[in-house]
């Protein structure tokens, strides 16, 4: 299977291990990723907050480039990139006026032929959990994982059009296929505070802290995520959470693709497992 690929800015800087693990895992699953040539930033929340037309145009340039390269589908591993690319896809397809305006702004032709996917969608709906299970060499037996979806993979529902907006289960099924124990918990789709880390770190530490302590109270060995922004808030800020609450945090946060890679027995150097502030050694020790 071949699919278009939009890494996004984070996967080329703080989330390099999300990119390397995604590539390694999809290679094993016989998916060839074709990167959109010379892609640009999706605009993320700042463009969304500042100007609606800009928030459509920045992702639309990427969709137009993908269309030029003959791609029918584009997979974006970052939940925020996925959300913003799909907003452009949907709004341009829905309304000709919008589409014309956007094409005028990007000064490129775009015929609304590109469909945007998130990584769970690709893994669960395109590849399927059975094909994933077939690649498992080292089942994650006895590993208790709390699946964390955050906001942007499933909401707003009319944009994401994926899974259930408040109780999604696709990652649960994926983890089940790896042999992991999926932890039932209450913070599956809570917001980590996202980009407000740069302006209101106090609020983000509190919001992310609630997720971490909920995972801890539920007995999870680790939290699985499919978003680099969530990863950075949840992994990097645990010392600040501990300082704010007086309770130790120390919950390893793993990209879903790192867990897939572990189960597929892909070498850890290829997955980038060292690139976490909270050590993932306890997770690795439990399954080896």
């Amino acid at each position, binding site marked *: 299977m071949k699919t278009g690929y939009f890494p996004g*800015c*984070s996967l*080329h*800087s*703080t989330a*390099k291990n999300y990119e390397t693990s995604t590539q390694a895992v999809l290679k094993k699953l016989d998916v060839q990723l074709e990167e959109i040539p*010379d*892609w*640009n*930033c999706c*605009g*993320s*929340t*700042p*463009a*969304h*907050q*500042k*100007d*609606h*037309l*800009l928030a459509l*145009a*920045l992702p639309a*340039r990427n969709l137009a480039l993908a269309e030029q390269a003959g791609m029918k589908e584009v997979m974006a591993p970052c939940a925020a990139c996925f959300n913003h690319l799909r907003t452009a896809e949907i709004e341009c397809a829905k309304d000709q006026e919008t589409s014309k*305006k956007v094409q*005028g*702004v*990007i*000064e490129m032709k775009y015929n609304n032929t590109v469909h945007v996917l998130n990584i769970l969608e690709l893994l669960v709906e395109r590849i399927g959990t059975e094909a994933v299970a077939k690649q498992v060499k080292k089942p994650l037996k006895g590993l208790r994982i709390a699946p964390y979806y955050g*906001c*942007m993979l499933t*909401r*707003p*529902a*009319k944009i994401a059009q994926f899974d259930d*907006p*408040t109780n999604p289960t696709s990652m649960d099924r994926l983890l089940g296929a790896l042999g992991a124990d999926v932890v039932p918990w209450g913070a599956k*789709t*809570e*917001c980590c*505070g*996202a*980009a*407000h880390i*740069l*302006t*209101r*770190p106090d*609020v983000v530490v509190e*919001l992310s802290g609630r997720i971490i302590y909920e995972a801890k109270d539920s007995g999870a060995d680790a939290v699985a995520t499919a978003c680099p922004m969530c990863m950075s808030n949840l992994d*990097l*800020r645990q*010392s*600040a959470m501990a300082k704010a609450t007086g309770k130790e945090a120390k919950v390893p946060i793993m990209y879903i693709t790192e867990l897939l890679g572990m189960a597929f027995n892909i070498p850890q150097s290829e997955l*980038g497992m*060292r*690139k*976490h*502030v909270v050590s993932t050694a306890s997770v690795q020790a439990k399954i080896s």
Partner: protein
Amino acid sequence: MKVWLEEKHSLLEEIEARSGQKVQECYQCSKCSGGCPFSRVMDYAPNSILEMIVYGMKDQLLSSKAIQMCIQCGICGAQCPAGFEMYEVMNVLRAMAKEEGYISHETKIPKMNNIFLGEVKNNGRMHEVNLMVKNMLSQGELVRDVAALIPIGPPMFLKGIMGFGDVLPHKIKGQAAVAKIFENVEKMQGGHA
């Protein structure tokens, strides 16, 4: 009295028309505010905002912190028993505030957004180190922000989350095309973008 009534209804009507949401159908169950991750730190909670629209409290709404804090996480819409998407109302309020030149009580978020988008305009992509440094220098909380970096900065480099190759930004080939997008939007929005 009649004029006042018309005025207050015009805000409600404008927001209903632009957001596609029937503000008047809200029956104040407050689930949007209960679910909103930021309602505790907003000056007006989402359910209050809906009521303020009905009362025509335009100035308070368009200069509020609340409309700048919404990141469209969408939980308000997912939980609303009336099937109402509150975040669309927030989007419209923020757009109106910009069009009408309101100065927000929330200054840090718009400042950060501008720094972020400046990076995208200049390089075609967002550069995390530049964003962090420029944002820290502009927000006037350098001591707090540097202190917060002490426990995470060194481990990020030691563990390779960030490498020295990440310190300098690099431009994409189509940077000029991306910068042109910003200029075109600016032109179309009549300087409001």
